[in-house]
């Protein structure tokens, strides 16, 4: 009897300690979340306000013009509705935007890639973009037609970053040892990264055209693998508060999550004020975003921004 009850007590103590141990372990894992301090997870931040004050109007204009973004939007005929919406909305704010399609479509002009394979589309789009535009643009932004991007916020983010350095930026995901940019949130490459990528495309061992033999990687991961061979690593983009600026979900989805997770701080906790992308938008939502970002505002709140961007010609929804 006594030996049983003392065994029971010993068991209880052991069970309790085990529980505490597991809890603390779990807490630690969750506590870090997006602000991981693990040195292999790369973060990159937007410029500070102090970095960018004290510039004259002329200097601001010059600085704004020095960041030139070329946009690649990969489309297929089934995406026609979104293709049209992207054409009519945010892509007008790229320095140049081109649609790279799997096959030719009567209604719209595009760069025809003649393949349905997503990885081959990505490869060829980057190859063509580099060949044609390596001297004209210093940043290359790849997106899907379900993504909405605010190019001005992208340019602000890139303000202090040297494009002759190898940058590969977006919303990153870790898969085992590989950290890659999730294409749903958009992918940003500096001209240097694109240059290195073009070279490694010629190496069929390190960067094969047909993905893996047995195991086909998603095109996002495949891109990361190829870039890694050239010494280019993915970096997760965040604002000065640590919030992601490339989002793989729509504002609506993120708001819904915020309503469930932190109902007292929905708007403040949802998303970055300087967000660059949102994903998963239907064509109508793109038009609402266009209005919401470029037009709708509260009167009387003014900002002293380091950059100046003028509305594009021939447009009336921005």
């Amino acid at each position, binding site marked *: 009897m006594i030996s049983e009850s003392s065994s*029971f007590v010993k068991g209880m103590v052991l*069970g309790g300690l*085990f529980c505490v141990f597991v809890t603390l372990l779990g807490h630690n894992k969750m506590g870090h979340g997006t602000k991981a301090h693990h040195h292999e997870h790369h973060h990159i931040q937007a410029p500070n306000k102090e970095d960018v004050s004290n510039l004259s109007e002329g200097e*601001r204009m010059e600085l704004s013009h020095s960041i030139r973004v070329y946009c690649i939007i990969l489309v297929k005929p089934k995406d026609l509705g979104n293709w049209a919406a992207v054409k009519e909305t945010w892509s007008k704010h790229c320095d140049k935007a081109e649609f790279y399609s799997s096959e030719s479509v009567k209604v719209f002009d595009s760069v025809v890639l003649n393949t349905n394979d997503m990885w081959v589309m990505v490869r060829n789009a980057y190859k063509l973009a580099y060949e044609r535009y390596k001297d004209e643009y210093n940043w290359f932004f790849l997106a899907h037609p379900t993504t909405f991007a605010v190019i001005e916020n992208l340019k602000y983010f890139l303000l202090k970053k040297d494009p002759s350095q190898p940058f590969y930026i977006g919303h990153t995901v870790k898969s085992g040892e590989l950290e890659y940019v999730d294409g749903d949130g958009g992918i940003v490459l500096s001209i240097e990264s694109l240059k290195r990528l073009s070279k490694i495309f010629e190496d069929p061992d390190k960067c094969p055209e047909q993905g893996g033999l047995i195991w086909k990687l998603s095109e996002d991961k495949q891109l990361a693998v190829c870039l890694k061979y050239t010494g280019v690593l993915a970096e997760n983009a965040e604002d000065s508060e640590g919030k992601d600026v490339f989002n793989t979900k729509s504002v609506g989805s993120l708001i819904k999550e915020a309503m469930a997770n932190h109902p*007292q701080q929905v708007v403040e906790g949802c998303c970055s004020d300087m967000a660059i992308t949102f994903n998963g938008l239907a064509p109508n939502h793109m038009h609402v975003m266009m209005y919401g970002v470029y037009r709708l505002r509260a009167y*009387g*709140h003014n*900002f002293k921004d380091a950059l100046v961007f*003028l509305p594009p*010609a021939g447009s009336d929804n921005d």
Partner: protein
Amino acid sequence: MALGGFKGSWLAFHVGIVTGFISTFYLLNGLLWPRPPGLESQTPDPDVWVVQHPALLSAGHPHLSGEVSTTAAELYNKVRILCWVMTGPSNLETKARHVQATWTRHCNVVLFMSSVRDDGFPTVGLDTKEGRDQLYWKTIRAFQYVHRHHLEQADWFLKADDDTFVVLDNLRWLLANHTPEEPVYFGKRFKPFAKQGYMSGGAGYVLSKEALRRFVEGFRTQVCAHTSSVEDLALGQCMEKMGVRAGDSRDAAGRETFHPFGPESHLTGKFSKSFWYWNYCYYPIVEGPQCCSDLAVSFHYVSPELMYTLEFLTYHLRAYGYRYRYQPPLPENAARLLQRQARPKAANATLLVQGTKTL
């Protein structure tokens, strides 16, 4: 027996482990993790509100991170708006709470009007029943209540539904060109059934102090009465009888500011030609991007999720460095209020394109 005893302790030990684990788990859950706020969250946030039961007074004008100007803050003090929101007991948690957490924070004073008093939310009890046929009764009682208790706290008095989203700063810009002594009211103007038209209830409407005085006076002298349950039309007819002018709320480019539907409908919808809307609008309907002013004042049929989304799009997300195409003028009266140099309203609004002004 020795073997049986050994088996017994072995069993007891393992039962002990499980019991220890489970009880520690619940203990930790109870102590370490604070209960997520449930219904207790009904009490208004003291950082945002000063509660003067049942009214909520804004504790301070919300500032945006990184902004440099004080124009919005000055207008907040010079063009004081009391907002009252039409709601009911069954909508408090599902709708009114989200209204309280978003756009009403920008009002100088806000009151939630219900048939039943609720000290926690808080709401005013109007002593009516609930239902569509009660809307005008609630409206009459609400304005009488506001007139009796809050007349000196504001210059303008806004009515909205619990599915209306309002941008108060844009309403202040609109109203800055008028004075509270003018007998005028603004909203989304409809034309039928009243000579000067009337304002859509769902899109929200705002009365000047003088307009409010006349509305209450109308009921006192029985010039106005509960003529129908169609709240917005009946109110409009009373306004007409009392000599209150139905104002033009369009912006300097002629675009509507109060909207009876959500932004998606106005921006992308194609209203069928047989839709009642075509015959109701006082001003010509514009579909597509020019439907709506950049300085929109209201949208209707806004779900709770859309409330937060619109608050985020209006007050938070913006395109860095972007020079807006629409550069609204600072009207004369507003300039006087703010002691600034007036930029008079051009015949058409100035719209910016690549550095050159076009109309």
